[in-house]
């Protein structure tokens, strides 16, 4: 043990985070085989796809053989709505969650009691990884309900022995009051909602730096490193990135440790792969591509090679924390959120960084793309917060020009910046709607 070793955030459940790699790979393989067998026996769609490839569970001889298995995509969940992918009878299912989905029907996911226990464990390990422990007061502002965020964080924090404030989303003034009065030391919400809280608190004469709050567990929407810096500078807390998606389990698929060097995937539960989103070719660790996840223990709804659409890379370099779990690079974009404007590839995260580069700017924005006279037009709507608002027309026009220049320097595209009143853009308690594409393709 090195002299620099600091007895870190540790909970008995975190032991799995440090499994030696040979044992971890063995465990993954054993669990994968059982999972594939179960899915083949119980899920018609998966069985048909295996049969179409003349594949049997027994054909899996090593962990690498996972690459032979068929992918699962989001439309599979829609096509089999609501219960078509369940591998457990309803008598064993104790919980449903659903994602709202921006178009059409929601996606339904289900959990057996064992699934809920597993989910609780990974959330517990998530909290432990960033130093939250028994005695902490956890302000849980993720929405409770069909969205997985609220209940997922709730069960994990409770199992850890922390004191949970199940405040859910909304009613920002009351959130600020409770945060201050209860003296919460950790908070769970989307990063954009946290910035909104800081801003609202300032309006009420409360500075987050004066509160005992020290850690934020932020997720459920893509965010950038500049947003992390902004959050930490304005609130004096440490901001940790948590990753998850309901199709896999909810939050707690991956979580950052105290070193904030990218979320560690709880690999004993979820097996990660990176593929080229165009060719579906498997890519090595370190290469950027689409994250594909396989649940290794899920009973009610096993997901095999689920294409997340999230673009990242797997980092197998050892982390200073000693965990053997591989890390994913911060997810700033999705394979399906890339915009092609006047032939230029643009990601919302680039525009977010550009806005945040301007002093006082908050990441409350929406990107509107339209086609006028055959030409793509990029408009970025930015909410005017108290910090940005100068009392003169000239001041606001200067701000507009500054934001517009910043977007142009990052994306290479001329952007019309439109200042809008605060709270007019959709606020994220689940996921922020960042892009409106009005073009008829």
């Amino acid at each position, binding site marked *: 043990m090195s002299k620099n070793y600091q007895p870190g955030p540790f909970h008995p459940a975190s032991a799995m985070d440090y499994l030696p790699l040979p044992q971890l790979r063995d465990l993954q393989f054993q669990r994968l085989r059982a999972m594939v067998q179960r899915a083949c026996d119980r899920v018609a769609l998966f069985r048909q796809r295996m049969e179409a490839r003349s594949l049997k569970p027994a054909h899996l001889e090593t962990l690498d053989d996972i690459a032979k298995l068929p992918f699962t995509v989001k439309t599979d969940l829609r096509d089999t709505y609501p219960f078509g992918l369940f591998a457990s009878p309803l008598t064993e299912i104790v919980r449903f969650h659903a994602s709202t989905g921006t178009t059409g029907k929601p996606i339904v996911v289900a959990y057996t009691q064992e699934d809920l226990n597993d989910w609780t464990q990974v959330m517990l390990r998530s909290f432990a990884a960033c130093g939250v422990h028994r005695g902490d007061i956890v302000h849980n502002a993720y929405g409770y309900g069909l969205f997985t965020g609220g209940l997922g964080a709730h069960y994990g924090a409770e199992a850890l022995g922390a004191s949970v404030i199940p405040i859910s989303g909304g009613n920002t*003034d009351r959130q600020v009051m409770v945060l201050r009065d209860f003296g919460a030391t950790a908070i769970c919400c989307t990063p954009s909602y946290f910035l909104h809280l800081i801003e609202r608190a300032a*309006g009420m004469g409360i500075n987050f730096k004066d509160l005992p709050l020290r850690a934020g567990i932020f997720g459920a929407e893509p965010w950038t490193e500049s947003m992390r810096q902004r959050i930490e500078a304005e609130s004096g807390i440490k901001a940790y990135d948590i990753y998850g998606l309901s199709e896999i389990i909810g939050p707690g698929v991956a979580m950052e440790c105290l070193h904030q060097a990218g979320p560690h995937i709880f690999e004993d539960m979820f097996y990660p792969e990176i593929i080229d989103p165009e060719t579906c070719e498997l890519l090595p660790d370190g290469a950027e591509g689409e994250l594909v996840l396989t649940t290794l223990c899920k009973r009610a709804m096993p997901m095999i090679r689920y294409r997340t659409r999230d673009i990242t890379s797997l980092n197998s370099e050892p982390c200073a924390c000693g965990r053997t779990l591989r890390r994913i690079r911060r997810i700033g974009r999705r394979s399906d959120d890339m915009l092609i404007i006047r032939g230029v590839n643009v990601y919302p995260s680039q525009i977010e960084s550009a806005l945040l580069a301007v002093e006082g700017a908050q990441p409350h924005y929406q990107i509107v793309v339209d086609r006028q006279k055959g030409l793509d037009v990029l408009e970025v709507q930015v909410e*005017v*917060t*108290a910090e940005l*608002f*100068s*009392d*003169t*027309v000239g001041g*606001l*026009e200067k701000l507009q020009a500054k934001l517009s220049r910043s977007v142009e320097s990052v994306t290479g595209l001329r952007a019309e910046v*439109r*200042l*809008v*009143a*605060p*709270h*007019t853009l959709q606020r994220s308690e689940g996921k922020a709607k960042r892009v409106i594409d009005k073009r008829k393709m």
Partner: protein
Amino acid sequence: MLMILKQLSIFLENKPGTLSAPCRALADAGINIQTFALADTQKFGILRLVVHEWEKARRVLLDGGWTVKVTDVVAIEVPDAPGGLASLFEVFERGSINVEYMYPFTAKQEGKGLMLFRFDDPDAAVKALQANKVSVVGTVELFKRLGN
């Protein structure tokens, strides 16, 4: 400093319906608008208001979700006669006092009108004006005249 008045500025988008809502919110809270001005461009506007209880008004507007800024402004008595404004502006020029914007009060008293000025440096402006015997109307006197 009692010579300095507090003005509230509200950011508005330039679209139908955005003007009435903040005024209605203030009305519902029993707050009377003493004077106001609207600065607008094609895309957005700034509504500037003077009210008696500015702290209460600010609270009402913040609660309603508006972006509000509090700015220091100065009320000045201007003779309601030819040359009244011209002489005042000459004082500004001699003292290098920079005016950002201005708008009037409707109240008039003994042949004198009241104007509201936003200076880039309100404190320095008040000093220079008083040295030139320009009548700056302080908060207490102003709201007395306006009937509060």
